[in-house]
């Protein structure tokens, strides 16, 4: 049963979608167009001298081993954040998807971190993990574990991964919970009747039915890890120590806003934009296929 309303004429439908089109034009097409244009120029910070350099900014980027390192680092970071936040969220969702006392309260508490601004969340993490003044950080040093994320690449990376994943757990939790609740009770009952218990039932019945949600969340989490973690990383480590936590989006900021190298920064943004387009296309294709079934 499909319901479709057809608006007559040409102008009326256009009028109806106009606000959205205007928003897209102003907040996406225009800046994106500017980014593409700037990525082909070299300009001084004030933009007084600007020359067309073609694809030179891109060839400089990909000729720079540090940029390639940054790509690899971003991939590792995104994969780790997506995996960690999704597995924790799934575990919590499975636990919350039962008849337990205080279920509502439990769920609200889990969703809460999503409302915390990234910079605030980072400050909380600093208060926890700072090697001298942090609750956990100082304690680790006290018991003899040399904890210093300001001077240890792996610890710094570990910390930004955990902090970024923590922030996303709530979001994933909501979707997993909704996904779990949309699995027909009858299917679960049937599996139970057939004697499938615990892990076996989860693996063979629940998880396959949850796969659409999982795929959707993978895309969303990758995009989140690639873009929305800027605030967290910037507040925690500013990309350091060395370049240990400098992901692509941090590099865009560093080159564009701090170093005022608009050309290079725009070229990096364009590369990122292509990444997002690919991810989004994959998501559409997947969701589209599901719709056809």
């Amino acid at each position: 049963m499909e319901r479709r309303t057809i608006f007559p004429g040409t102008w009326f439908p256009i009028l109806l979608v106009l606000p959205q089109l205007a928003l897209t034009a102003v907040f996406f097409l225009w800046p994106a167009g500017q980014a593409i244009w700037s990525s082909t120029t070299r300009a001084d910070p004030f933009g007084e001298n600007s020359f067309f350099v073609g694809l030179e900014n891109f060839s400089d980027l990909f000729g720079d081993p540090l940029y390639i390192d940054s790509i690899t680092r971003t991939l590792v970071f995104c994969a780790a954040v997506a995996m960690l936040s999704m597995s924790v969220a799934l575990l919590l969702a499975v636990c919350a998807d039962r008849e337990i006392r205080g279920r509502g309260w439990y769920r609200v508490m889990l969703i809460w971190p999503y409302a915390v601004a990234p910079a605030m969340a980072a400050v909380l993490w600093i208060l926890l993990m700072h090697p001298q003044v942090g609750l956990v950080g100082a304690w680790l040093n006290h018991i003899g574990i040399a904890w210093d994320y300001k001077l240890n690449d792996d610890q710094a990376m570990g910390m930004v991964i955990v902090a970024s994943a923590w922030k996303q757990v709530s979001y994933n939790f909501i979707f997993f919970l909704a996904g779990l609740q949309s699995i027909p009770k009858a299917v679960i009952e049937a599996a139970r009747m057939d004697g499938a218990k615990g892990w076996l039932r989860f693996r063979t019945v629940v998880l396959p039915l949850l796969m659409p949600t999982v795929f959707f969340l993978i895309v969303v989490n990758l995009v989140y890890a690639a873009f929305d973690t800027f605030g967290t990383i910037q507040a925690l480590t500013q990309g350091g120590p060395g370049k240990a936590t400098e992901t692509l989006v941090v590099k865009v900021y560093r080159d564009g806003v701090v170093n005022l190298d608009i050309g290079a920064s725009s070229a990096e943004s364009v590369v990122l934009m292509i990444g997002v387009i690919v991810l989004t296309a994959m998501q559409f294709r997947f969701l589209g296929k599901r719709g056809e079934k």
Partner: protein
Amino acid sequence: MQRRTLLTGAAALAAAPIAAPISAQAQAAKTKIVLWHALTGANGEEINRLAREFNASQGDYALEAVFKGSYPETLTATIAAWRAGQAPHLAQIYEVGTGSMLAAGKAVKQVWELAKETGLKIDPASYLPAVRGYYSLSDGRMASMPLNSSTGVMWYNKDAFEAAGLDPEKPPTTWAEFHAATVTLRDKWAKPTMAKSGGPDLVAATSSWFAWIQIEQFGAIHNLPFASKSNGFDGLDAELKFNSPAHAKQLQMLIDLSKEGAFKYGGRDAQPDPLFYSGQAAIGFGSSAGRGDIVRNAKFKWAASVIPYDPALTSTPNNTIIGGASLWTMTSPKRMPAEYKGVAAFLQFIGHPDQDMQFHEHTGYVPVTLAGFELAKKQGYYEQAPGADIAIKSLTRGTVTANSKGLRLGRLPEIRNIVYEEVEKALQGQQSAQAALDSAVTRGNKVLREFEKSVRT
């Protein structure tokens, strides 16, 4: 269509007679001058005080000081505003942004230009040479107006020195003495105190502004170039030179001390400050502008001393170089001569010895004029606040050479970040000090060449 034209025409006609009295009224009212700055806390209060007193001192201009975030944020905001034709009249730009601002062409009006246009009287000779040099062209004309200048100093904890059996009145003056002092502090103060109290981690020494103090200042003090072409003053084609064996030896010493647990790298820029303020580090290199915070926070006896030098490299250590920021006059398409006059009046106002002295005493920045310094001396400020003149002594030591005048390099903030990155790798044992500096120089030179290409037509 026709009707619309008629209507707009009528509106324009109707507006014309009204517009005239409005602009006349505006002229009669005060001319508004906007200043963007990056100062917070006590220092931000001080800018507001300057604005208040300037406004009270005359009837023609109303200056409004607006906080715009950190130094890099203020620079970015200023550039973005200029590109949009909305630049403030004055922008406070940190010293490492000077190279970029000098290449800003018609976006800025340099002080000498402003003086010529408005009749502002500025005598460069009345400013401290180390301060003036940083913000002047090679021929001595001033490009921007010094506002807040500090320099690197060595803060030390007298109580810790005493506990370690060191003479609290004799801070280390050479790097060899510094090395010995940190080892003693580690063994006789940090370790025993930690063992007894189980309190927070204590460390002999730390350094804020690592790139500025341990590399840039180190070069100036020992008359070693940071870059060729007089540290960039003589041309955009300067190349970085801070990977000399002397630089590497100094960095290697700090890396070794760090490995031996006598030195702690506490992060970039001002991040390590709290280590000294809280008493966790016995020696803390930092900006002289930290004085206000130390007075407020330190629960121990402390003092400041000049950054040590290496007698093997020089018998006559040079002046240290400045940090801080200066005021740049920005242009804008619709700016009136009266507005530039107001800017000039404000710049004149802050250069007044009395204002300069107050700014110095309220913030911990050095007086930028010689007269301001003399006034502070005459009023006995340094007897009341011993050690407050260490920064000035440090800045005025010896004669200013091509290597101690300051740095004039485009995209210097980026180069500093590169230095931090490479040093952090070296501190983790991933590379030697020499390799770190070599790599920083190579990467930094690439940035300089990019800058050169971008500003040359």
